[in-house]
């Protein structure tokens, strides 16, 4: 299997993502610079977290216009799996690859900590290692993770099994109290219609060993690699 990580000026989780993918895949992904105009052939495109272009104007807006993203959008439309984490999720919504938008956290503050997520709809490729309805633990680290979508979009997300994760507590309870950033319906991650794109605010690449405090991220990437190889 071959994987590609997109790197923008201001990306800062690109190395973390590379390490996580390499740990599961055995070989390093290609790192592709935002100014490049074509992608190597690849089984997975990963858009990392960070502050692309400083998150100025709107998070992900400027990155969404960089040359490489035209290619990413094309490949995604043609079915190449895309994993868009945190700032990557913001980039994906800005390009329209995923519906909705990510606004400033409801409490206005940056938030960095482990969160419990409830797995909402199954998607073998991305969450095949988890049971629908179980909870997994990934860290969040964002200032603008407050997911918004209008009512029709929400209906569609719900109806077509496009909601991947919701902010929950350890026992999988999803409510106001577990909504860390004000997202509609506690949404933490979503798929596109075809299910080949996953965008999520939490960072699976940050919990990939006991030494780092957990392995749910490792399980996530191991499954991703198996399902794509």
């Amino acid at each position, binding site marked *: 299997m071959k994987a590609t990580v997109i790197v923008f000026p201001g990306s800062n989780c690109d190395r973390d993502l590379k390490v996580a993918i390499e740990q599961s895949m055995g070989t390093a992904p290609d790192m592709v610079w935002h100014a490049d105009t074509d992608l190597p052939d690849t089984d997975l495109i990963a858009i990392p977290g960070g502050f692309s272009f400083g998150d100025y104007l709107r998070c992900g807006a400027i990155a969404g216009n960089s040359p490489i993203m035209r290619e990413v959008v094309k490949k995604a439309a043609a079915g190449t799996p895309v994993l868009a984490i945190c700032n990557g999720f913001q980039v994906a*919504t800005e390009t329209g690859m995923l519906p909705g*938008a990510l606004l400033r956290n409801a409490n206005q503050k940056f938030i960095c900590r482990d969160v419990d997520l409830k797995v909402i709809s199954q998607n073998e490729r991305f969450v095949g290692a988890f049971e629908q309805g179980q909870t997994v633990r990934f860290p969040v680290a964002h200032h603008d993770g407050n997911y918004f979508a*209008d009512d029709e979009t929400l209906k569609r997300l719900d109806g077509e099994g496009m909601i991947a994760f919701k902010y929950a507590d350890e026992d999988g309870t999803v409510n106001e109290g577990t909504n860390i950033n004000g997202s509609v319906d506690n949404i933490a991650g979503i798929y596109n219609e075809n299910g080949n794109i996953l965008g999520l605010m939490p960072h699976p690449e940050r919990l990939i060993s006991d030494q780092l405090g957990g392995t749910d991220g490792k399980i996530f990437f191991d499954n991703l690699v198996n399902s794509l190889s």
Partner: protein
Amino acid sequence: MKARVTISLKNGVLDPQGKAIEHALHGLGFAGVNDVRQGKIIELDLGDLSKEEAPAAVERMCTQLLANTVIENYSVELLD
């Protein structure tokens, strides 16, 4: 010539910044204040763009970059 682009959240899009400001204003004793919305203003010098080209050009800047039309409205003022 110059342009001023005003960008505001669409109605129905919740506005966390606006909400936070409203909350803080109440805290400061401005109890009656409500419906606070925050938007952006972007002022640009269009350089050598002519009066004729300007409107279409700024329109393109807005749709391609300055505004996210999923959640935002924008309006353009041209000044010279």
